[in-house]
């Protein structure tokens, strides 16, 4: 792979899977701060709920997707949890983060060639419980990178709040983005959490005044710009649209998906497009596959570790011009009842739970069915934007 200076990423070449996969069941676990639960207990609970939602038994699941991260719910864990022993196809190209958007691509292949009929995708973490043992909490995955250990961490450039506050400050300089505009994202997510009894921050309101009065612990970030650290997980079940037509609940149809990749990986300091995400590459691919445009979208959920990541994904996914994100999100734009671009209507990782995006997809499905806590009126097209840094992904779901 040789590139020109300034080139920084590309879209994965995906074949068209529009209309080939339906999500017929969703579930998430109880969401909490440190709870003493194990990851397996958390995911198992989410799976039980997804099965009940889909009207299926554990033995109906013959495909299982999860992420390569530690402690995830593989076939052995599934069988132990449910006391089953049947053959299950499995793939580690699912889970949360970017995989929560692109799992349906790999499920489509398995459904098409008969390897599976009902494919379960899960993700969960017990990071609130485990936080004390981890090096820099969720920063541990970055501390494990030896370039970071030897070129970034000794200088204090660690962990994620520092990376993204650095990006936010440059975004403010390049585009005039303000603290109030970042605050509008945090306030919208909190309002949605206040409406959602499942959200960790359900009882904690956040006004703009309160946001601005909060100390900047990683200037320019306040703690309200940063996601929670949580115990929780989620699951969704995929099948063909034909089978999903018989499910108890209205299915959501996978209309388009895409994956974008950054050559610099998680070495954000060296990313040429410093204030962009790989959604620049994934979103056009996903919308093209779906035959839709950002203007058609009623709900945009996205992986929101920090307010600035939401702002960049809104720009990079095409909801506004690059650099205009601050003005775009100001005011009530992102609120579920604004009639503009409803965003993270369950509260997101900022205010629902830091379960790395899996609950975002669960929320999109609930919105398309009309059963969400903060229900968007006439929600027909919902999008999830996944993000890890090295990758960004886009999933376009439509009402079945």
């Amino acid at each position, binding site marked *: *792979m*040789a*590139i*020109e*200076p*300034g080139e920084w990423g590309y879209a994965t070449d995906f074949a068209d899977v529009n209309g080939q996969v339906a999500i017929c069941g969703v579930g998430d676990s109880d969401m909490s701060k440190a709870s003493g639960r194990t990851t397996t207990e958390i995911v198992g609970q989410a799976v039980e709920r997804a099965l009940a939602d889909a009207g299926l038994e554990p033995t109906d699941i013959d495909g299982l997707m999860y992420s390569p991260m530690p402690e995830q719910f593989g076939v052995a864990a599934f069988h132990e949890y449910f006391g089953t022993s049947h053959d299950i196809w499995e793939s580690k190209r699912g889970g949360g983060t970017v995989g929560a958007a692109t799992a349906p691509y790999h499920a489509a292949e398995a459904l098409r060639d008969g390897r599976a009929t009902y494919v379960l995708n899960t993700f969960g973490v017990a990071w609130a419980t485990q936080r004390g*043992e*981890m*090096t*820099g*909490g969720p*920063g*541990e995955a970055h*501390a*494990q*990178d*030896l*370039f970071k*250990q*030897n*070129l*970034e*961490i*000794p*200088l*204090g*450039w*660690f*962990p994620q*709040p*520092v990376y993204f*506050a*650095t*990006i936010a*400050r*440059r975004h403010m*300089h390049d585009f005039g983005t303000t603290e109030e505009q970042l605050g509008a994202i945090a306030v919208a997510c909190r309002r949605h959490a206040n409406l959602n009894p499942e959200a960790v921050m359900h009882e904690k309101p956040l006004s703009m005044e309160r946001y601005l009065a909060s*100390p*900047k*612990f*990683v*200037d*320019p*970030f306040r703690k309200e710009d940063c996601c929670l650290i949580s115990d929780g997980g989620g699951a969704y079940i995929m099948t063909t649209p034909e089978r999903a037509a018989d499910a108890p609940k209205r299915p959501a149809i996978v209309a388009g998906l895409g994956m974008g990749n950054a*050559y610099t990986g998680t*070495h954000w*300091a*060296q990313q*040429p497009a*410093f204030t962009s995400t790989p959604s620049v590459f994934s979103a056009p691919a996903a919308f093209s596959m779906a035959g839709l445009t950002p203007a058609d979208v009623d709900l945009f959920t996205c992986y929101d570790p920090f307010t600035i990541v939401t702002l960049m994904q809104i720009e990079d996914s095409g909801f506004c011009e690059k650099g205009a994100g601050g003005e775009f999100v100001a005011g009530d734009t992102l609120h579920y009842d604004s009639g503009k671009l409803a965003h993270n209507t369950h509260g997101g990782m900022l205010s629902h739970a830091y379960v790395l995006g899996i609950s975002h997809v669960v929320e999109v499905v609930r919105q398309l069915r009309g059963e969400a806590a903060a229900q968007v009126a006439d929600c027909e097209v919902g999008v999830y934007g996944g993000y890890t840094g090295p990758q960004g992904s886009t999933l376009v779901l439509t009402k079945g």
Partner: protein
Amino acid sequence: MTASTPKPKVKTDETSHRVEGHITRSTFPLPDVTWPYTAEFWAAADRHELRIPVCDTCGRYRWYPKATCLYCDGEPYSWSEVSGRGTLFSWVVVAHPFLPQFADMVPYVPALVALEEDPAVRVPTRMVDCDPADLTFDMPVTVTFREIAFTGVDGSVTAPLFVPA
């Protein structure tokens, strides 16, 4: 420019740049000055020189010093001394110690400095000897070599920090 660097004696795939599990190295978060990919960076800093690798094949800076050049797929590279002058690309003011070893550092100002020789090369560093309120985007800055040490960790290492020029 120094003689061509011997290829680091570790695997060149992405996974070999990582360790698994909790970080157990007793000198963390000091750098491991023996890690082949960055040993020359820290040896140079100890001599009060800022050195950045240059690809032997295409002549572009290779930062970070990975086994293969992103621009030409070339492998050999050489460490080249740079002026230590640059501009302040971005920075943050950290009031919360994210590691217990950072406890005596707060507040501190981690920053990215774009090098004069090639602004696409951004050096992670810390701004010192300045009031954070006086920092401005793209202001000229210059390297200074200081001992860094961390709470509860034995030893110190000479590191390239930056000050306003």
